[in-house]
């Protein structure tokens, strides 16, 4: 089996550092310009990647010897972050026979809450293709990133997101090795960045205001392994202060199978 993550991977380029303990985990991510929006603040879609990695790791540790699949992920931002690093702390809310629920708070360098997130995981019987979580824990340890890793362009651009139809919130993204998870599918946290791009395009078009995504609730239905992935969006409401959209993500290369349904909130600004 090829080592995961490969040398060129978003986990390295986002410079995530994580430590999965028993019952709690901690991770950090530098706030670099490529992860910030045009308001100069850290994007919600960048935070979903951090949150997905830390919660998935903790859930996998918790569910051992079984394996897990992300069922849903929610993120609510409470303030902006534009410099330094953010720290995510995850804890187990529930470790049941069929479900693991994780809560994650994300704080800035001063300890102020930037976002609160939750993630639910379905517990599945372990299969041979499932990675050894202890090996992943080692791979994610500090100091193992390639020396030239780092994000040198906007995260969405690096993922390859292109806006096809802003008014209808249609964006497309390829499935590349850079963004695959350990199961070979498009990484669940990066899905957040795609959903964010789609909703932001649609809500800005509808409102005429520079709304930024602050809340994401994504329900994962199927993996996206082929690509390109494509969104379709419905704007529920939008004015110059707030907008709400529903976004669906499909894998056009897999008979347009529905991967994710999401509800997204965007607001004018964060404190």
């Amino acid at each position, binding site marked *: 089996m090829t080592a995961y993550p490969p040398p060129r991977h978003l986990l390295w380029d986002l410079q995530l550092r994580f430590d999965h303990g028993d019952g709690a985990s901690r991770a950090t991510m530098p706030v670099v310009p490529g992860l910030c929006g045009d308001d100069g603040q850290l994007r919600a879609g960048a935070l979903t990647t951090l949150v997905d990695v830390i919660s998935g790791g903790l859930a996998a540790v918790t569910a051992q010897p079984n394996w897990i699949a992300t069922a849903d992920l929610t993120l609510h931002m409470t303030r902006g972050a534009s410099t330094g690093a953010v720290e995510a702390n995850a804890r187990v809310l529930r470790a049941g026979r069929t479900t693991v629920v994780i809560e994650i708070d994300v704080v800035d360098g001063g300890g102020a809450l930037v976002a609160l997130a939750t993630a639910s995981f*379905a517990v599945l019987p372990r299969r041979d293709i499932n990675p050894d979580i202890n090996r992943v824990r080692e791979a994610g340890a500090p100091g193992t990133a390639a020396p030239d890793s780092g994000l040198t362009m906007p995260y969405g651009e690096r993922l390859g997101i292109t806006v096809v139809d802003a008014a209808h919130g249609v964006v497309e993204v390829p499935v590349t090795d850079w963004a695959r998870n350990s199961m070979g599918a498009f990484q669940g946290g990066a899905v957040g960045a795609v959903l964010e791009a789609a909703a932001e395009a649609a809500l800005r078009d509808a409102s005429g205001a520079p709304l930024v995504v602050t809340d994401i609730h994504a329900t994962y239905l199927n993996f996206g392994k082929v690509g390109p992935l494509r969104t379709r969006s419905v704007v*529920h409401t939008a004015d110059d202060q707030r907008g709400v959209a529903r976004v669906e993500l499909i894998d056009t290369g897999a008979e347009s199978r529905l991967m994710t349904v999401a509800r997204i909130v965007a607001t004018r600004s964060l404190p």
Partner: protein
Amino acid sequence: MTVVEEVTRYVGVELHEEDDGRIVGHVDLADHLRGPDGAARPGTLLTMLDSAGGLCAGLAALPEGWVVSTNLAARFVAPARVGPIRMEAAVSRVGRNNVVATVAISDEGTGVLVADGVLTSAILVPEQGPPQWTRPLVLGRERAPEPQPMLTEWLQVRTVDGGVEMPLDEIYRNPWGIMHGGIVGMLVDLAAGGRTTDVVLHFLAPNRVGPVRATARPLGTRSDGTVQRVDVRDVGADRVTAVAIVSSS
């Protein structure tokens, strides 16, 4: 199994099964379901969402099992002021362990979408086996007599430090003997101030003993309102039973 739960009678939920597996429901917007602003309380809308989504998911889990709610999320898009209220639930995915159902709630009097929600349920095999239904299913034609007490009175809610508390009387329990998920939603909304615009609610453990207490903690204030974390606790069992993140206007 009790076919019509008390909370279903109180809210006045009527549900029926469509040929394609969708569950469609209606509720007359009676006075006892309205909040101080005259619109349907978000908590009662959550109950409708849980009822329609849960039934839809449960039927999808047959014949192997039935379901319990594990995660309920909704965004309230516009107030429901006229009624009747229409619910439409559809299954998005049936997995080995869980079922995902989406629920749209609209105000038929105005034609606007009121709430867009999703309910995730775990599939379980009850000791007595899954419930037996006559298909296509029709549920809730039996209404409670009018007038009904207002919500806070019916729930016997009292204010406590940082939140609200209610007893766990029989009328608040579902057929499994635990507090109905929709009532947990009502309690979460009340604890957060009753002006919920967005909620994600994780059911962590059943409420079996009572009283049940919900306490809210503000996380931050944004241009569109306040974000709070709400803990629900079975005081008698001394454990946290649900956690919610609530945005309020």
